[in-house]
């Protein structure tokens, strides 16, 4: 067995083209999910009636069902249904023209919301109750206390888990290829298919992820240091 190095070198730039797609899905999902999941975390922490039940079911359902099914529903069934509706209403809009990236955004955002809400919940619970009381007692509103005191402290516990989530998301966007969205892995597979250069393509893909995810992780650990400046390090 010998590797086709020419192929690897030639394919590398093509695979790099998958990076923006991967990052777009990752960023959109994280940014849209963040506020939603934060409120879901609050609903569970403060045990808001009914809503709390809804959140639990949502998290459990999204987390518990295979993504392939979710993609099947969102990408295959939903547009068919919409198309049927729109046609029967006599509108001219063509559902099938919608860029599949949108479906990817939807699926990955729904998943990120579920996971992120649990990350936030645990992080918020790690902050001492007395911090809220102190904030309220100097005349801040609860949202102000959260923004200024609780969230900055919770971030310290949240960031490592957020990093886990972000890195996993970057890798998992490869599932978007089920919806014809070509991320890093997909570009590799396409390049590999003609000459069956799978090993070479996977090595390329690996290198790209290695660079990309290392950067992301460095970013997070830098952020963790910044946010955690108030805390004394515990190395002993």
């Amino acid at each position, binding site marked *: *067995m010998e590797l*086709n190095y020419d192929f690897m070198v030639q394919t590398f730039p093509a695979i790099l083209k998958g990076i923006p797609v991967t990052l777009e899905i990752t960023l959109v999902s994280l940014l849209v999910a963040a506020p939603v999941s934060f409120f879901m975390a609050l609903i569970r922490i403060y045990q808001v009636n009914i809503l709390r039940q809804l959140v639990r079911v949502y998290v459990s359902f999204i987390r518990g069902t295979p993504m*392939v099914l979710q993609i*099947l529903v969102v990408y*295959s069934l939903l*547009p*068919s249904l919409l*198309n*049927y509706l729109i046609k029967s209403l006599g509108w001219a809009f063509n559902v*099938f023209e919608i860029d599949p990236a949108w479906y990817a955004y939807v699926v990955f955002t729904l998943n990120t919301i579920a996971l992120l809400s649990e990350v936030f919940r645990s992080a918020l619970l790690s902050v001492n109750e007395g911090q809220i009381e102190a904030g309220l007692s100097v005349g801040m509103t609860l949202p102000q206390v959260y923004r200024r005191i609780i969230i900055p402290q919770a971030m310290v516990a949240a960031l490592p888990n957020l990093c886990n989530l972000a890195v996993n998301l970057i890798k998992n966007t490869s*599932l978007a*290829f*089920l*919806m*014809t969205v*070509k991320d890093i892995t*997909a570009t590799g*597979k*396409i390049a*590999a*298919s*003609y*000459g*069956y*250069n*799978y*090993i070479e393509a*996977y090595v390329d893909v690996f290198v790209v992820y290695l660079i990309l995810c290392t950067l992301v992780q460095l970013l997070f650990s830098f952020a963790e240091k910044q946010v955690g400046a108030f805390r004394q390090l515990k190395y002993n």
Partner: protein
Amino acid sequence: GCGNGTDKKANSEANTTEKKVVRVAFTNYYVPYDFVNQAGEPDGFEVQVMKEVEKLLPQYQFKFEPTSDDDLLIGVESGKYDVGIKGVWQTEARKTKFIFPKNNIAASVIGLTFRKSDADKIKDMDSFAKIGGKLVPIAPQNAQYAVVEDYNKKHPDTPIKLLPSESFQVADAYTWVLEGRYDAFFDIELAYKNNVVNDKGTYHKFNDQLAYVRYNAIPTYPIFNKKDQEFADAYDKAIEQLTQSGKIKELEQKYFGEDLLQLVKK
């Protein structure tokens, strides 16, 4: 080195009574060519042919390994498996990676499924390519993908719009064609027959709304690890015997209901 499979063979060769073990990887989900049946056993036309080949080669003992396409390709290339069967088309690029035997193992008949209402416009691949119809995306590791790529290489002026996508293993493609999301679906004929034409097929009720046109029958080959030339030659001899004895035809009838190999343009 990568060829630990051959090392082992070298050992067993010294011991003449012992058979050489060859690992035959086959893809899981490629019905009716290669798959795992309800009883959990290796099955499919290509698998059965290989079993017949084994009978003719007393010096070898086959060990069938169901696996994914990706693993099959990497495994045969690296020597973890000696042979792989997954309905492989022959291309020049692939020949640099694997040994292709002289004789094909099977043939794949593929063509276009489209809406019957388009029957006046779509008569064959060429007419489909000309109207610039939308083709249901194909997984790049699938055999069909390479066929369309090949077609496009030969017809650079009127290429078919080929969209890659991971495949769902889902027959939703028929729905997609029916509702106009795509104009045609490039698939093996057998799937169409079983799903739509067969009156027990789940999509049979759309039989009068769908149509199928055959594109080509293409020979498919087992792929051998680069170090297994000797075994590949033995395979070729066995296949010739099987063809002559009519065993292949018999299996074709069993799995396809017709003589596919005859359709292959020589």
